C-alpha cells in the first residue's frame, strides 16, 4: 500500500475522536500563536493544508479566499459545519499534499498547522507547496518538531514509533525540510522549548 493511502486510512480512523484528542487543552494552549499566524492571512488566494475537522477555522480572519485541503475524506466530512459557518470563501478538497492538483503559482499564501509532523514525505509535500506558491509568496507553519537538545531528541526518537501509530512523528526537522524545499526561512518563533514553533518562510522571487 502506498504511503499516501496508509496516511489517508490512518486519518480516516482518527477522525472520529480527533476533536476529543486535539480540540481540548492542546487547542486552547496554542490558540494565541495560531491566531497570530493566521492574522497574516491577506486578501489574495490562500491555501490551507490539512484542514482536519476544521478546528482552526474559528481562528481565521473573516472574508478571506481560502482553499482548504485534507488527505482524509472523513476529516473533511466532520469539518463541514465549521466550513459552512466561516464568513468568507472557504472550499475544501480531498487531496494529498505530496501530489497537489493545482497549477504552478496558484496561491499567494500557504498556511498549515501540525501537518508536517505527519506527512509521510515532508520534503516532497513542501516541494509541492513551493510549486503552487507564487514567487515571493509566503508560507506559514505552526508545527511540532524534533529538538536540537540531544537528550530530548533521544526521547522524541524513542517515542516516535509509538506516536506514529496514532498520529504524528515527534522528531521531524521541519525547519531543515523547509530550507531543503527551497524556501527562505524568515523567522522561527519557538513557543514551547524547541519543539513547538511558528515558522515563517517565503518562496524566493
Amino acid at each position, binding site marked *: 500500500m502506498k504511503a499516501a493511502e496508509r496516511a489517508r486510512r490512518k486519518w480516516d480512523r482518527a477522525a472520529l475522536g480527533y476533536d476529543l484528542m486535539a480540540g*481540548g487543552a*492542546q487547542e486552547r*494552549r496554542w*490558540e494565541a500563536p495560531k491566531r497570530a499566524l493566521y492574522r497574516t492571512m491577506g486578501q489574495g488566494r490562500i491555501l490551507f493544508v490539512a484542514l482536519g475537522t476544521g478546528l482552526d477555522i474559528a481562528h481565521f480572519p473573516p472574508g478571506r479566499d481560502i482553499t482548504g485541503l485534507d488527505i482524509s475524506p472523513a476529516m473533511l466530512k466532520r469539518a463541514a459545519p465549521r466550513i459552512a459557518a466561516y464568513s468568507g470563501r472557504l472550499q475544501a478538497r480531498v487531496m494529498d499534499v505530496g501530489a497537489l492538483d493545482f497549477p504552478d503559482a496558484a496561491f499567494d499564501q500557504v498556511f498549515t498547522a501540525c501537518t508536517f509532523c505527519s506527512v509521510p514525505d515532508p520534503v516532497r509535500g513542501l516541494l509541492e507547496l513551493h510549486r503552487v506558491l507564487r514567487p515571493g509568496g509566503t508560507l506559514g507553519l505552526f508545527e511540532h518538531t524534533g529538538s536540537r*537538545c540531544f537528550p530530548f531528541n533521544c526521547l522524541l526518537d524513542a517515542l516516535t514509533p509509538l506516536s506514529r501509530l496514532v498520529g504524528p512523528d515527534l522528531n521531524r526537522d521541519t*525547519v531543515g525540510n523547509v530550507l531543503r524545499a527551497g524556501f527562505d526561512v524568515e523567522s522561527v518563533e*519557538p513557543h*514551547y*522549548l524547541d519543539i513547538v514553533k511558528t515558522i515563517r518562510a517565503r518562496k524566493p522571487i
Partner: protein
Amino acid sequence: MPSEQGFFWGDLGAGAAVGAAMAAAGHGLMLNVSPVWLAFLLVIPAGALGGMMLNMALFARFLGGMETMLQSWLCGAVGALVGACMASDGVVGAMAAGVGAGVAVFLGLRLWSARIAARARRGIWS
C-alpha cells in the same frame, strides 16, 4: 478557557504533583528492591514512565498531553531519583523533596525555553 497564566500554574502544579508521586514511588522502590544498585538502575526509567502515565491520566486533558510530556518525563525521573536518595527520611520527606524536584525541573525548562525564544528573536534558530 485557561489563560497563558493558567497554563503556567497548571504546568507548575502538575510538575510538583508528578515529582511528589514519583518520589514516593522511588522511595518505595529503594526500600523494597535489592540489591541497591538494581533499585537505582530501575528508579529513573520507572519514574520517567510513571510520570508520563500519571500526566496522561490526570493532567493531559487540562494541559495538553504532548505539550507536557517532556516535563512529566523529567519530573518523574528526577522525582523518583530524589525519593530513592531520601529512603532514610520517610515517605513524607521524600515527597516534599519530590515537590521541590518537580518545581525545579519546571523552572529549568521555562528558563531554557525563554533562552531558546530569545536566541530565535535574534535570528539564531539553526
